[in-house]
């Protein structure tokens, strides 16, 4: 079942930049998908189009089968939320608590329930102790977490995230992805994210699209996308480092790896197997 489908979408900015040049794909129900692309490849633009923020596009965006531009903003945003790349675009209240409470308050939920939701959302992103803090005192990564908490507290069915892990520390990056995966698996939230973190993607994402020059040039499971370094470098990307290592061992040092693993866990298994074979 498609939740969000794009058909032949093209978009050019007012200054003539062709940011999206013909994109067709769909995000399915319950999927944890993402788009990968170099700086300026059009990821942010694509997300804004999917969210209905950019309206004057060619082609169509369908949310649960209806053209998104025919839906009212209430209808769209009751189902779908977007987290921007820059947290300052999104955090407008003076304190963390007030910002996270903004969404639920607007939904007309009772105050006690709002407080509960805010607390839960902040706990999920490990920001509960900062509830009273002024937004401008937070670090970049903390702001990003608050952005996400702001949407979590509303309980959207679809989340669009623009580089949710950029600017987070290594553990934070991992925790963020883990949190998103839990949302996806346990709460059945459909997630679509733009990202740069090549090394984390294969661990978490079900499906991956590679964007280059406003076009989707590759798509499929991470295994299907990350094949050879040459192909990735054509679109100014690279393999996950562990994959790169095994790839080189296989092709340059002629070690007998069966396939190219993408995560450390898989690589470990492959290597152990290789050793066992040698014995």
């Amino acid at each position, binding site marked *: 079942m498609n939740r969000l489908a794009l058909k032949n979408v093209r978009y050019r900015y007012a200054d003539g930049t062709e940011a999206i040049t013909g994109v067709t794909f769909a995000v399915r129900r319950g999927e944890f998908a993402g788009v990968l692309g170099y700086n300026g490849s059009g990821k942010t633009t694509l997300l804004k189009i999917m969210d209905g923020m950019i309206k004057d596009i060619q082609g169509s965006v369908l949310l649960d089968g209806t053209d998104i531009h025919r839906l009212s903003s209430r209808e769209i945003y009751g189902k779908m939320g977007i987290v921007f790349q820059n947290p300052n675009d999104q955090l407008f209240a003076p304190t963390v608590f007030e910002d996270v409470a*903004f*969404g639920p308050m607007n939904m007309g939920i009772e105050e006690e329930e709002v407080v509960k939701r805010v607390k839960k959302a902040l706990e999920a992103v490990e920001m509960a102790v900062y509830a009273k803090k002024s937004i401008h005192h937070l670090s970049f990564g903390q702001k990003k977490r608050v952005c996400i908490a702001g949407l979590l507290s509303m309980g959207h069915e679809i989340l669009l995230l623009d580089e949710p892990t950029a600017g987070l520390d290594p553990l934070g990056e991992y925790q963020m992805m883990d949190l998103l995966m839990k949302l996806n698996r346990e709460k059945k939230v459909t997630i679509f994210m733009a990202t740069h973190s090549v090394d984390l993607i294969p661990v978490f994402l079900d499906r991956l699209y590679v964007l280059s020059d406003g076009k989707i040039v590759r798509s499929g499971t991470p295994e299907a996308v990350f094949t050879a370094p040459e192909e990735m470098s054509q679109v100014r990307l690279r393999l996950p480092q562990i994959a790169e290592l095994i790839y080189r061992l296989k092709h340059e040092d002629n070690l007998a790896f069966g396939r190219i693993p993408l995560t450390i866990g898989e690589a470990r298994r492959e290597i152990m197997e290789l050793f066992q074979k040698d014995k």
Partner: protein
Amino acid sequence: MLLLEYYATDHWLSRIDARIKLLVTMIILVMVLSYQGVGFQLLVAAISLTLIVSMKIPWRLFLLRFSEPFLIVLVVFLLKIFFSGHDPLFSFDILGFQITGYREGLAEGIAISSRIMAAISLMAVLVYATPFPELMAALSWLKVPRGFIEVLLYAYRYIFVLFEEAMVIYHAQKNRLGYANFRNRLSSFGILTGSLILKAFEQSQTLSTAMVQRGYDGNMPLFQSRPFRSSEIFLSCLVVTVMGILWGI
């Protein structure tokens, strides 16, 4: 930006409801403004300054806050003393020019100066004891229009963002000789401020989208304020009564 943020977190005044602090401050402010004389003003100033000292405000902040009003006091004082009245109090020579100060001017100057001192130190107590969001909530409780409060909240939040932006641009310009001479200083400055305005326009667009997607319909929701504690009410009534009596005599 330090000035904007400071407040005494663990002072007993900080724990009192912002609405009460605001109301009491405003009542005393009105008393100060309408008092004819010096005694009450000095009393208010003394109490306020004592409170400020007990809040352990860093001296630099204190100086910054008061330097501007102090200079105003000085100017008003000079203007009054040399130009008001006709009863010469003193006169002296500077570089062969004689200057005369007048008694009435001095009296009026002192009155105005003490009023300013009282008022600004009173306000300083309020501000140092109340975080901004609480102050805004108190204002909205006082029926200041919601739209205005909302504007204030955005302004407060984005002062920090835009200031950061301004600093980035400023340093970038400076590194590229943007401030090397007066002419390009001016133009750099124009570009800096212009960029801020552009940023404001763009940011307001993304901001409103971010808000709309979280259910914004043109009005920011506000939390209901908690009920007053009776001890707070009692204390404030006491303070106002005592000050009122002192004001009357």
